[in-house]
């Protein structure tokens, strides 16, 4: 499967290299595209620039499992900060992350990521055995500061909290870092994020970017609440309205892994270790 991913990545790079198109407004920055602009990817969010400073966005696929929406508001921009343009955006969001653990397929993953509580559903008197999930909302707020245009630096910070409206907060999933982070406001109570991104335009048909992110979630698991990730990738605009993006992302997180360490005489002891995972990121982006 890794080879398949590599092949797909290679094809994406080759296709992008052959294209000659105008650059688009840098993604994941405080800069805003023109009013009325829409963009969407297979995995990237659907985004609508309502005014020159305000945009709304949501992930169409993720919306089915956890309804959510976000607002980006460019609150300030200027020129001449160390010789470069700059912009500052505020970001707000609201999600219903419990959805995915409360409903079975196709709306959610009840019975897979959490208990199905089949005995409780019979109505029998078996108290306190169903570790089901209550309803919750997860508001989020943050800010994004971008310095520069063609070669830019973005600092990103946000925090999200899961507020239980009914029932119990589910236990942390203790699973793969991307999924753990996605549901962390619900399962861990809150999630905070600090990110640093740099992006450079290499040519009209290519922008490269690198990103380093630090995450902290609430202390509801025996595992470490800290996650670090790094991303390296590129956007390849193939036309004014279409681009490919390809990259690779690394996560360092405590997912409960252990090593058995030899004490030197054949006997071993358990040592807890952090997991390192590397995944490809591929997507197609449309803008109109």
């Amino acid at each position, binding site marked *: 499967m890794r080879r398949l991913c590599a092949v797909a990545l290679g094809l994406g790079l080759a296709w992008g290299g052959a294209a000659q198109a105008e650059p688009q407004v840098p993604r994941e920055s405080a800069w805003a595209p023109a009013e009325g602009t829409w963009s969407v990817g297979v995995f990237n969010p659907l985004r609508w620039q309502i005014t020159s400073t305000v945009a709304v966005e949501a992930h169409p696929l993720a919306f089915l499992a956890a309804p959510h929406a976000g607002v980006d508001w460019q609150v300030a921009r200027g020129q001449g900060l160390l010789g470069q343009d700059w912009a500052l955006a505020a970001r707000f969001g609201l999600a219903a992350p419990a959805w995915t653990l409360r409903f079975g397929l196709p709306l959610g993953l009840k019975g897979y990521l959490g*208990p199905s509580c*089949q005995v409780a559903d019979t109505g029998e008197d078996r108290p306190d055995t169903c570790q089901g999930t209550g309803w919750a909302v997860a508001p989020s707020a943050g800010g994004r500061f971008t310095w520069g245009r063609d070669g830019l630096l973005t600092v990103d910070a946000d925090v999200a909290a899961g507020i239980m409206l009914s029932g119990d907060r589910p236990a942390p999933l203790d*699973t793969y870092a991307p999924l753990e982070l996605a549901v962390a406001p619900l399962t861990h109570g809150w999630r905070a994020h600090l990110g640093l991104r740099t992006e450079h335009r290499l040519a009209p048909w290519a922008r490269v970017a690198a990103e380093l992110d630090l995450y902290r979630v609430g202390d509801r698991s025996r595992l470490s609440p800290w996650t670090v990730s790094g991303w390296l990738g590129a956007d390849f605009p193939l036309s004014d309205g279409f681009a490919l993006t390809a990259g690779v992302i690394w996560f360092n997180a405590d997912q*409960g892994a252990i090593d058995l360490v030899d004490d030197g005489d054949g*006997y071993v002891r358990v040592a807890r270790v952090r997991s390192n995972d590397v995944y490809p990121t591929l997507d197609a982006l449309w803008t109109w």
Partner: protein
Amino acid sequence: MRWIVTATVVALCACEPFAQDVPAGTSEAPRFRAAQIVPAPADPAALRVMAWNIKYAAGRLPFWFDCWGDRVQMSAGEVHAHLAGLTGLIREADPDVLIVSEIELNSRRSAYVDMVRAILRDTDLNYAAYFRTWDSRYIPSEGLGRMDLGNAIFSKYPIPKAERIRQADRTDLDALTEPFYIQRAIGRATVDLGAQAVTVFAVHTEAYDEDGTKQKQIAQIFEVARATEGAWLLGGDFNELPPTALQTEGFLDERTTAVCGEDFEQPPYTPEVMAPFFAEFAAWIPLDRFGDTPEAQARYFTHTVLGPDEVNEAGVPGDWSRTLDYLFASPGTGWDADSTDVLQRAGQRVGGTDWTLQADPLRLSDHAPVFGIWRLR
């Protein structure tokens, strides 16, 4: 936001695989040692031995696959409380060799508690070998998550060698379930008593297969034991009834209505597959002692899904309902007949001895310990 994108390909490209495959054939198993070694008598002529399925220190919590409840996870406090009960009984029995089924080293459902370390710390047992049978990074079923379960052999005496012998896998699982499923193995450890070494086997066979996997596993266990030279001891949860069992279906702890689907339905037992063990090996309870009445056989039941504080659909409280756990020893060795027993409930006299059991096994696990004094010469 990029992790949302990434989540879709995580399962396909992660560095650590979904599940670790148990090596085919025979492979080395990890051995552990207590921080404090309690001296044991040198060159013993007999060993106190016990085999016990401890249900991953879940006590009597009704986990979802039992179909009497929906629990999927325990808190660390619950696990430590259950372990305190388990180690209390172990200290009371004071075995020289302890064979444990369903022990966990690092599982999410048991709060990542290292149970091998806990037993070494809280009993007089000094050494352990762990035979991993279920090693999955994340099992996407009921939120099980990370799983590191196996069987173990504990001993007061050094364990210089431990091996895991792969058993047959189920062939009746779908392609999505199979990579995440338990892979049974025979645990084999050499226990160094000083003047002699003995071989100890730990087993736990399949419970829910419909394709004869359990029967293949039991046959393999028999052949491996029979081919072993010198003194050996075999114990564990065979998930099979003794050949003279009077009741083979309709147990009081079985549901009459399906709740959990077909995955955890009990397939028909095949008690005849245990006959060769009783015919050729030294059983801790011989078949004639099991008796030929329901009351006599009930005295040696070792398992019930339903705990004493729960009732079945007819309102009957749970109690031991069948015999699934055994101890066997090599021909030429034997048992102190007065010592052997199933430790079923507090207040019972153990075998024909003066020992009155203080702990209450019915509330500590869904299996009762089987105990005896094994005479080596």
